[in-house]
């Protein structure tokens, strides 16, 4: 085994065989130690939320990872390579530069309210810029109808930092424990409540258009919502609810009450992009 062991000879056989063996051991140990050190570094540099989202994003079915420009029909097929963070996407910047997103024309889409003064995140939250430079965050109408009146909401404490695609808050409803993705990065100034119509008031870490480039707006909302309703229809069917949302219908106010037999943990996980 080692030069000082009984039976060890300094010959080609020992050197080649034990050399290969030790090399393998060193590689395996280095891999483990490297993963452990990187993990410690990640935790220290507060990358937990980013890693959680990257991990969950990679686990999403390919159709759910579609680029926003596929939803609008600008591109035929493209999987988002930036985990829905268009702020760092060159393709998005180029496409928007060539064809700026048209302003929305309607506040009511498929019977749901999507006011034009807000920007929308693909995890079913909205952001409304306020006049004092802060932003208000809330659940969009489809998200609200999915969760109905939440059983319990876990909101971040005032003064804490939230980041894009990290956890904004958690909602418990009908056996489901849902992590709602944050649409913005910044400091929490105030916490709302489900009944208030909003959940968080945030001082964004950056201001201006680039800070909100990843959010859907104007004419983008309708095709995205259409895709979301299709997804919801499939999810409800797959999770044990009766076939739902026939053409022309409007989602009811509290879907989980209407289909108590469905696996709402799975439905909400799917719709709120949680793995």
């Amino acid at each position, binding site marked *: *085994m080692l030069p000082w*062991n*009984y*039976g060890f000879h300094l010959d080609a*056989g020992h050197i080649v*065989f*034990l050399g290969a*063996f030790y090399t*393998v051991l060193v*590689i*395996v140990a280095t*891999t*483990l130690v*490297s*993963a*452990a050190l*990187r*993990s410690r570094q*990640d*935790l220290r540099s507060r*990358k*937990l939320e980013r*890693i*959680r989202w990257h*991990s969950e994003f990679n*686990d999403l*079915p*390919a159709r759910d990872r579609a680029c926003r420009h596929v939803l609008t029909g600008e591109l035929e097929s493209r999987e988002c390579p930036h985990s829905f963070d268009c702020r760092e996407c060159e393709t998005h910047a180029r496409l928007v530069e060539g064809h700026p997103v048209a302003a929305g024309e309607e506040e009511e889409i498929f019977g749901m309210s999507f006011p034009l003064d807000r920007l929308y995140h693909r995890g079913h939250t909205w952001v409304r810029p306020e006049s004092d430079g802060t932003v208000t965050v809330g659940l969009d109408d489809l998200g609200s109808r999915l969760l109905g*009146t*939440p*059983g*319990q*909401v*876990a*909101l*971040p*404490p005032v003064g804490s930092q939230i980041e894009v695609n990290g956890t904004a*808050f*958690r909602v418990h*409803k*009908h*056996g489901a424990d849902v992590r709602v993705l944050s649409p913005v990065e910044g400091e929490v100034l105030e*916490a709302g*409540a*489900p*009944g208030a119509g909003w959940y968080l008031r945030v001082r964004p870490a950056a201001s201006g258009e680039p800070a909100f480039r990843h959010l859907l707006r104007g004419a983008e909302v309708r095709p995205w919502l259409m895709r979301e309703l299709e997804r919801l*229809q*499939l*999810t409800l*069917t*797959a*999770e044990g609810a009766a*076939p739902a949302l026939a053409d022309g219908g409007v989602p009811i106010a509290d879907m989980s009450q209407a289909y108590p037999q469905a*696996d709402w*943990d*799975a439905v909400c*996980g*799917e719709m709120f992009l*949680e*793995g």
Partner: protein
Amino acid sequence: MRRIPSPGSTKPERRTTVDRQLIPRGVKRCSTGKFLLWILPWAALLAFGLYSAGLCLVKGLNQTNMDNRFAFGLWIFLDLTVIALGAGAFFTGFLLYILKLKELRAVINSAVVIGLVCYTGAVCVLAVDVGQPLRAWFTFWYPNVHSMLTEVTFCISCYLTVLAIEYVPIVLKNRKLRQVPSFLVFEFELHKLVYVLAGVGTFLSFFHQGSLGGLYGVLRGRPFAFREGFAVWPSTFFLFILSAAAVGPSFILLTTWLVEKISRKNLVRPEVFGLLGRISGLLLAVYVLAKTVDTLIWINRTSPEIGFPAAQYYSWQPFGTWILFAEIVLFGLVPALILLAPQLRARTGWLVAAAAMACAGVALNRFVMTVQTLALPTLSFDRYLSYFPSWQETGTFLAVVAFGVLVYSFSFRYFQLFPSERELKFGAAAVRER
């Protein structure tokens, strides 16, 4: 996080069991009661097997029907077979992480679990077979570097470690465990380095699969097994590597199909089954060709040159020439042709039957190399030996099977073994909608 109850909520929150909380989100699993009913007989079988193995360890190998002349029996046959079948883990990892065959992501987790089960079973049975587990470290500390068995021991131990490390991200990805921040981050970082482990696994598997074959090929005193070769490696070294790589994907295909049938769920896309079948068929065809050439050289040159006409090996019943035909043609060429024919491969029945035949073929090959080799007389005063395993040997063998089923069942229930499962469920829902 500050928890606030919603004022509008009047109904108490539905409680979920711990078992339910551990099951991946969005996949359906049977009830806890049904699951317990499923694992109960396997747990009983494992307990019986552990008792059998315990007897062998405490009372010695006199509990088996092996002796100094017939030193390899059911256990070594089992070891060789499960190690060959478990090759799906290294080969799938190689194809996915090194050759970037992304489609195989759908089965890689399952392949790792199967590999881990196979290699753990093999190492445990070897520990019972060696009979002195407390001195197991001797083989590492005082290695005979000229022995194929030493290489096998080193490589299998290392590869089992690699498989255990590859299993860690699968476990840590469990829904409940990933709520622990350090687990989530470690799983993420380890997964990023998994290609290194895949490379190491391929290197180790290549050599120990080969050395398992090589240790028969170098048996000059056993002309039935002895083969010529290249440098220090007899031809069996290469044939074992090739056959293991060929049946590994077939075994993954077979087990996935079985799990689909038992759980009554679609777990992978038909194209993945087809791809596994095509890879397996291609390699099996190359193996059959190589095995045929090797057998012809052995019949016409190697064996006669050391004074043994090959025909005499097959004069001892029940090991007639039928076994050679079954090994090369029935369970080699036939499944290879089926797997290579696109029309047949497209039919699940043919595909699964061919995969099962390929797996049976490699098991038969390992049986022939282990049992037939030792049963045949070599010296003039030798007699033809027969061997039948004792109940303690059989019990230990069954313990490995039960252990495998239990580990796989728990892994399937609580971990995401098939990443496409959720997506396929939505596909089925879309069909129902229409």
